[in-house]
């Protein structure tokens, strides 16, 4: 606690980095995973293939990614973009499985009714299926977001570890205060993000909040 209080500036700077590295991949990951997940949702073979590929991506060690990425995209090895791209890949890999699962949660009777009253396939996806998948998707997103908060640590390989640098430094220098400060800060951050997504989710799903007769 003492360390946290005496290093507030540093804490703030590290928190901003940490947030950037955790949240931007979420947004980008969603932008990739929602269309992709929706596309493969009803095609079993494609869906299995995508899930399989996603699991493989998840196992690529981040160090390998950081060395390879600058060769593919125009970044230098220490650039923050490497971490963001790597985390986006991991996030998209996680979400591309969560999206079809969230869509599965839409009741079959509702989908049938939507088709029968005259929605086009695209209309069904955009106006009925995706909106109704939101509660499950938001739940999955909360898990992915909190996971990302800890995954930001992969950036420490290139010196961008966010609040995780307090763990490593505290450990190496035998400063338990610093370690505790790191734990508290990351925990608080994770809780805030979780609650933020929870509230945002509630906001966009008003029908899920009403009291049922």
């Amino acid at each position, binding site marked *: 606690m003492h360390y946290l209080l005496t290093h507030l500036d540093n804490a703030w700077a590290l928190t901003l980095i940490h947030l950037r590295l955790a949240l931007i991949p979420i947004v980008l990951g969603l932008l990739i995973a929602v269309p992709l997940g929706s596309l493969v949702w009803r095609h079993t073979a494609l869906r299995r293939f995508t899930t399989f590929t996603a699991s493989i991506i998840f196992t690529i060690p981040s160090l390998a990614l950081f060395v390879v990425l600058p060769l593919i995209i125009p970044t230098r090895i220490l650039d923050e973009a490497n971490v963001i791209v790597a985390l986006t890949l991991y996030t998209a890999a996680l979400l591309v499985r969560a999206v079809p699962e969230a869509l599965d949660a839409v009741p079959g*009777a509702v989908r*049938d009714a939507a088709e*029968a*009253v*005259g*929605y086009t396939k695209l*209309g069904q996806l955009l106006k009925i299926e995706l909106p*109704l998948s939101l509660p499950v998707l938001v739940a999955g997103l909360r898990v992915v977001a909190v996971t990302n908060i800890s995954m930001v640590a992969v950036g420490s390989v290139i010196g961008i570890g966010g609040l995780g640098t307090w763990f490593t430094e505290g450990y190496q220098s035998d400063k338990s205060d610093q370690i505790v400060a790191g734990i508290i800060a990351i925990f608080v951050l994770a809780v805030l993000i979780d609650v933020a997504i929870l509230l945002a989710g509630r906001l966009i799903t*008003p029908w899920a909040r009403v009291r049922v*007769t």
Partner: protein
Amino acid sequence: MITFTDVTKRYPDGTVAVDGLTLEVPAGSLTVFVGPSGCGKTTSMRMINRMVEPTAGTVTVDGRDVSTVDPVKLRLGIGYVIQSGGLMPHQRVIDNVACVPVLTGVSRRAARQAAYGLLERVGLDPKLGQRYPAQLSGGQQQRVGVARALAADPPILLMDEPFSAVDPVVREELQAEMLRLQSELHKTIVFVTHDIDEAVKLGDAVAVFGRGGGLQQYDAPARLLSNPANEFVSEFIGDDRGYRGLQFFTATGLELQPLSAVSEQEIDALELAPGDWRLICRDDGTPFGWINADGVQAHRDGNTLYDSVTAGGSLLHADGTLRTALDAALSSPSGIGVAVDDTGAVLGGVLADEVIEALDAQRRVAPAETD
């Protein structure tokens, strides 16, 4: 008009859901598809709006083969009601009702305006429009489902067991609403149910499907009950079809017995023999119940009117059928059914014998068709 010409639905694993169905649904009529589960009634209906594609045969709507029409356009022109409403849970009731017109290009505001009117039409308080479907009861959700199906004023309505998921009291109300709406709108309706009584009550024509998807009989309800085509149909209709058939005979013209009723004040003065009953009436002439000797003694002993009187049977109303007339007589403790007028005041008594005589008379006039 909807026609099925030798329509078959065979699934890849070999099951035959619909077997060579040929039938014609007249425009403006309410046709019921009825049968046990797995008989292909729902599958057949869903071939009309192409939710299921036939493996053989053709389905036409107003002369056009539906397989040549774009499915989305087809469905926008056909109303569809399913069990438990099939409402979109994330849209308010009003938007659920307005959804088809909006899909066809009507402005959302105009569609919503019209939707309020539709809610009233199906017997709902327009204020419910602002709620979400989950906040409505099962019966209310069903009505919304019907309103949604009617919103774009389609000539055809498909209804898949729409009233099966609600309790019997609500079901009766909904059935009555359905008949009332149809008498105003004259849509071409295909109605699927597994309940033969519902089929016979609602349908202008009833198609009975057997297991394996074959059509067993397609007839007016009265004929179905009086002349089942085969053993399957008669077993499916079940016992009491004679009794149920009485609903197709009117009770107007039924001779009523004079019925002397007494008021509450006169009870204590009654002298009744064992087995004797008297009808108690309120001041406005509406029947309260029947009282016998034991009841009179109980009343003299100081018991309340309510405790002394035996509840009466069902009532015969002005628009009643021979079935309701007979039931009034049978269910009355005295054996005399009570007939009432529009205000509920007692008109007279109904005897079971009279009902059977009236039945004979009507049968002679319209001889039963025998083949």
